[in-house]
């Protein structure tokens, strides 16, 4: 149910339903508060309309629980009729202290935390953190080729699933429910691939400093190729549904306008920046994990509006498919190659395997450490409990996440735990554009503008 409260005028009296234990009237000390929880709208309109100060400004709290604000985003809108005169964001409702928690766990365990931040792009969180740690360890050149290819493959699959959610939820918010259903249908296919490769649909903790946790399972490449073939059939459906749809275009075109100068001033990156026509993509300009070896194009649009951002996301999924195909071809030639760094002081000692009772440490490894080599057991124990030490210093290796520049500022004091890990999340930075994109427009356009930014509150609040 929509929960909206608005303040008008200057008196302290309160109307509306007051039996909501979480939204008492004591929240504000000025103005009149109307708490809308699904009662008879006529009585509410009457009580507002009967007020002498009705023509004064109305402040509407949209969120933090609202179906069209992409999670727990609170919008504070000052309205004049249907026009938004001022828009501000209230964030922090999903702050979970991930950065602080990481300071109390080992470097490898840090991946388990940061994968949960931007939950629609978990692999990009893991990747930027791992790249930062690897730079501090000075092992960037020692990452096995297969690990790099798998990182690229999973990142691009992740880009597709994230863009699908962006398009799906964006469509749902303007009433295009079919876009939502087909978007989540395809995303499910990507999540199935994630489940096949990492064992989990989200919160993978699959990229580790030094490589990736696990080799590709048998049959994964065939599944990936099937998926690419299927996506090539399905992606045109989105174009057919939306690209020239007059309702869709009317809602998106010239909404949420932000030009290049505005983007740079506000630090906006990703599809929003590329919708101004500027082809800035870290995969091309500052390649990491071997992106320079893949053939793909940076997608741009020149309208600087929500429609352009939608088209960019659509086109980027095609580019991701191209990269996935190339990565799959490479992986076919890398069967049996190592996926973890050769340095035994950093590499996670064990590989998982499917046993009769499910996934666990491989029996070969257990036999080795428990029956054959005392040193291997000590080594395993030390690496798993204590972890490795990272030389003091700081590193920042950003990656191009589906939403823009995602970077981890990793600081080490030479210990076995991160001294500080700060994530520059693109959702957090891009959300600052809400005001400039929506002020002066209609309330309905606020939703479209925010959907075009595609913020993920898990990343915003961390």
């Amino acid at each position: 149910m929509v929960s909206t409260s608005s303040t008008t005028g200057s008196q302290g009296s309160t109307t509306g339903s007051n039996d909501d234990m979480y939204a008492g009237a004591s929240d504000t000390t000025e103005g009149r508060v109307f708490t809308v929880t699904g009662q008879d709208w006529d009585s509410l309109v009457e009580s507002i309309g009967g007020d002498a100060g009705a023509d004064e400004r109305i402040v509407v709290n949209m969120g933090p629980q609202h179906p069209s604000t992409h999670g727990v985003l609170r919008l504070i809108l000052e309205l004049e009729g249907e026009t938004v005169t001022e828009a501000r964001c209230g964030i922090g409702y999903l702050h979970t202290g991930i950065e602080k928690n990481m300071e109390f766990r080992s470097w490898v365990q840090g991946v388990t935390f940061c994968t949960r931040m931007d939950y629609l792009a978990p692999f990009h969180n893991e990747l930027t953190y791992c790249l930062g740690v690897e730079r501090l360890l000075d092992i960037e050149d020692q990452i096995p080729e297969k690990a790099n290819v798998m990182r690229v493959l999973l990142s691009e699959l992740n880009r597709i699933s994230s863009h699908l959610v962006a398009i799906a939820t964006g469509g749902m918010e303007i009433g295009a429910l079919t876009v939502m259903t087909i978007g989540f249908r395809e995303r499910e296919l990507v999540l199935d691939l994630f489940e096949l490769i990492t064992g989990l649909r989200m919160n993978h903790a699959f990229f580790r400093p030094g490589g990736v946790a696990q080799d590709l399972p048998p049959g994964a490449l065939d599944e990936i190729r099937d998926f690419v073939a299927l996506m090539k059939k399905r992606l045109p459906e989105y174009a057919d549904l939306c690209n020239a749809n007059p309702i869709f275009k009317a809602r998106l075109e010239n909404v949420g306008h932000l030009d290049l100068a505005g983007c740079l001033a506000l630090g906006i990156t990703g599809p929003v920046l590329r919708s101004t026509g500027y082809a800035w993509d870290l995969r091309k300009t500052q390649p990491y994990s071997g992106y320079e070896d893949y053939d793909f194009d940076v997608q741009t649009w020149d309208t600087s509006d929500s429609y352009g951002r939608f088209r960019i996301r659509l086109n980027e999924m095609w580019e991701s498919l191209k990269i996935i195909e190339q990565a799959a071809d490479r992986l076919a030639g890398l069967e049996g190659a190592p996926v973890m760094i050769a340095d035994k002081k950093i590499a996670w000692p064990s590989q998982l395997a499917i046993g009769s009772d499910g996934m666990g440490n491989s029996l070969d490894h257990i036999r080795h450490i428990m029956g054959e080599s005392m040193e291997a057991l000590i080594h395993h124990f030390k690496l798993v409990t204590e972890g490795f030490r990272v030389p003091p210093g700081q590193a920042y290796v950003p990656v191009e996440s589906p939403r823009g520049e995602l970077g981890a500022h990793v600081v080490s004091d030479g210990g076995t735990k991160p001294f500080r890990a700060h994530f520059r999340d693109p959702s957090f930075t891009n959300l600052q554009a809400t005001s400039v994109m929506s002020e002066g427009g209609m309330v309905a356009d606020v939703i479209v503008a925010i959907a075009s930014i595609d913020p993920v509150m898990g990343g915003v609040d961390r």
Partner: protein
Amino acid sequence: MSDEKQDKQVEQPAVEQSPENVPAPVGEVETVGRRTGMFGVTGTGDTSGYGGLVAPIAYPPAARRPFGGWFDTVADGLDGLIEKVVIHRGEITFHIHRDNLTVVAQKLRDDPTLRFELCSGVSGVHYPDDHGRELHAVYHLLSMTWNRRVRLEVSVPDADPHIPSLIATYPTADWHERETWDFFGIIFDGHPALTRIQMPDDWPGHPQRKDYPLGGIPVEYKGATIPPPDQRRSYN
């Protein structure tokens, strides 16, 4: 005994000695605090003796000219405004005094030979052992024109945590500075609305500081009690 060992800190050679990073002479090594013990046990519980280990924490030392490549170009543009330059793992860090920060930012953004158009935000770091400069604000700047990245680091004492705001130059710093204030208590002078952004408005303290506990409650399982992560015995 520990005093003797502390005196030996200065003899610790620089950690990083790659060709691109000329080691600082002995005495200029950046040691901040020291690490004691190994397995997190102290007192009579320490039967291994490793609890007596003392090692200095040596951060990458200051680099000297020539820095190499475009590093010199940027350093030339900021001549006289830099406290110290650190080059580590191919990333350059300019340590700036807070009085110069706004000038430096303005120069970095507007000088055609520098052109750092994008500020990737502010990251606070709390070094409780870096006496007199406990709070660091770290800015990552990106030049899209030249495809370069630099890092600015401003250090202020805990007793006087004031840094000028960069909003006038980089409006994107707005939320980032609020976040750094929220988590570290660094006051960004000139910020139009320096309020909490992640924590509730009435939250006491600044949670990301090292002297702020992680929190958590002990977990009891089958009669045994496991303390919260920050009170557990752990490696250090």
